């Protein structure tokens, strides 16, 4: 039987990996983030609407 603390850490690691995967999907795959072209400070939103 897995100890409660071990189970807790497994859940935490899975949650972390899920969070990182989501960020990867949002940023790298979809390119969904705010881009500034300095020095003109022109804001370009690349998110897919």
């Amino acid at each position, binding site marked *: 039987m897995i100890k409660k603390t071990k189970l807790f850490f497994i859940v*935490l690691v899975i*949650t*972390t990996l899920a*969070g*990182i995967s*989501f*960020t*990867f999907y*949002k*940023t*790298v795959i979809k*390119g969904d*983030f*705010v*881009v*500034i*072209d*300095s*020095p003109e400070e022109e*804001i*370009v939103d*690349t998110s897919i609407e």
Partner: protein
Amino acid sequence: MLLNSICGTEAPSFLGIFDFSTAPTLLFYSYIPILIISIILSSIILVKDNYSVRSKLFFGIAMSFALWILNVLVQWVSSYHVGLMFAWQLTVLFEISIFIFSIAYIRTFINGNNVSWVINGILLIVYIATLIAVPTIYNIQSYDSVYCEGSLGIFWYFVYGFEILTLLWVLIIGIKGYITNKQDYNKRRQITLMTTGLTLFLLAFSVSNIYGEITQNYEVNLVGPLGMVVFLGLVTYTIVRYKSFNMRLFGSQALVYSLWVLVLSLIFINKIDVVHVIVLITLVLLIILGIILIRSIKNEITQKERLQKISLELYDANEKLKGLDKLKTEFLSLASHQLRSPLTAIKGYTSMLLEGSFGEVTGVQKDTIDKVFQSSKHLAKVVEDLLNVTKIEQGGMVYQMAPFDMEKTAKEIVDDLRITAEKKGLVMDFKTDNQAPYTLNGDMEKLRQVFLNLIDNSIKYTKGGSISVILGKNKDKIRFSVTDTGMGMTEETKQSLFQKFARGEGGKVNAGGSGLGLYLAKEIVGAHKGKVWVESPGVGKGSTFIVEL
């Protein structure tokens, strides 16, 4: 639009996504060795400290730090904007993890595994909040595609605040641990070293990050990880000096691995000034390692020599003791044999005198001769016991095993001794649990001697009351017990009663015993693969001697 565009003008030269030309030369030689050392060191600690909680937490610090370093390296060398942004976003997660693990580690190091679930809950909330913030604009609010860097969001105010709070928290835990461990000097020293190391590491790390962010000069961040070197150094020193991770060779191993990494890195360096720096670091580590190794070898040799000397002395002493013990046994055997013959004569002639074989004896004469007869009988018993002990010790005791009826033997003994008991005003009874037959395969004469001894002891050491002899069965074993209302005994007496020449509480009252009866009983019963023991509720509360065969 931005997905496939690269930062700068250089095409990625490594794996199609990285470009090393943009990174400062010292980056690799300051970050990579620290990264490798951290991973190796924490892994060794984890394995050799048997996966203890504190070693797992130290591993957590090292791994979070290693991931943070890797992430920073990616930020320096990544060619694609999306990769850069992703790395910028992840920084917060690894940075927070370092601080969370640091608090948990110092608390476990000082207080053991007594964790407070409230504090753990707070740390968990901080971590989950960070994880949720990672992909949002509160973490990295925008990305500058010209300078190829992220712009930090408002969540970082919380991150830097948490870092400063953690720093103070670690210091407070350390100081509190130092104050509460007044008696333990070694523990205090360990706490001082660990707290100093961790504080310096966190201080260098957070200050360089905060300063780099304020001034937008990210090369300052390169200084930060050097705090980890101080921390690792102090951890290693603490382990070697105080063995706080149950290891001895640990420090030397870590330093040797560090040297390997440093020497290996020289192969890839072209710039002579960088080579000088690396050689200098290698020399310093070599000096430290050399001193530690030489001291360790000296200690080992001294201890080994001392152990060999002690071992030889012990061997000699043991041989002498064996010789003395043999001599004593031989002396006892000889003396007993020499004593037995005259005693038999004394016993025989006094018995004949009492019976009137040499003419009528008067009342006073009869009393005196009876005293001589009783004393010679007692002396003969002591001599017999001594002879039996010497036989046992020389391995010369011979047992004539044959089936016999225990009930009959026990009844005979009780009948023989009942007169003596009644003379003292004691009531003696004999009972069985009605599970006859009580047939036993053993040396009847020797076992008879054992039972006789036990009942005789009870009579001797019981001033008034009763003696109850019970014969019964316990599963497939026969149990013989003698319960008296005598003087009883303490726990300590119970432990030593069956040893040679041991005297119980009764020894003070009855000085006549040889102190061998119970020792012989234990040996004889043991030879029959049985056991004998005593139970007593305490002094003055009687006792029960039990033989199970």
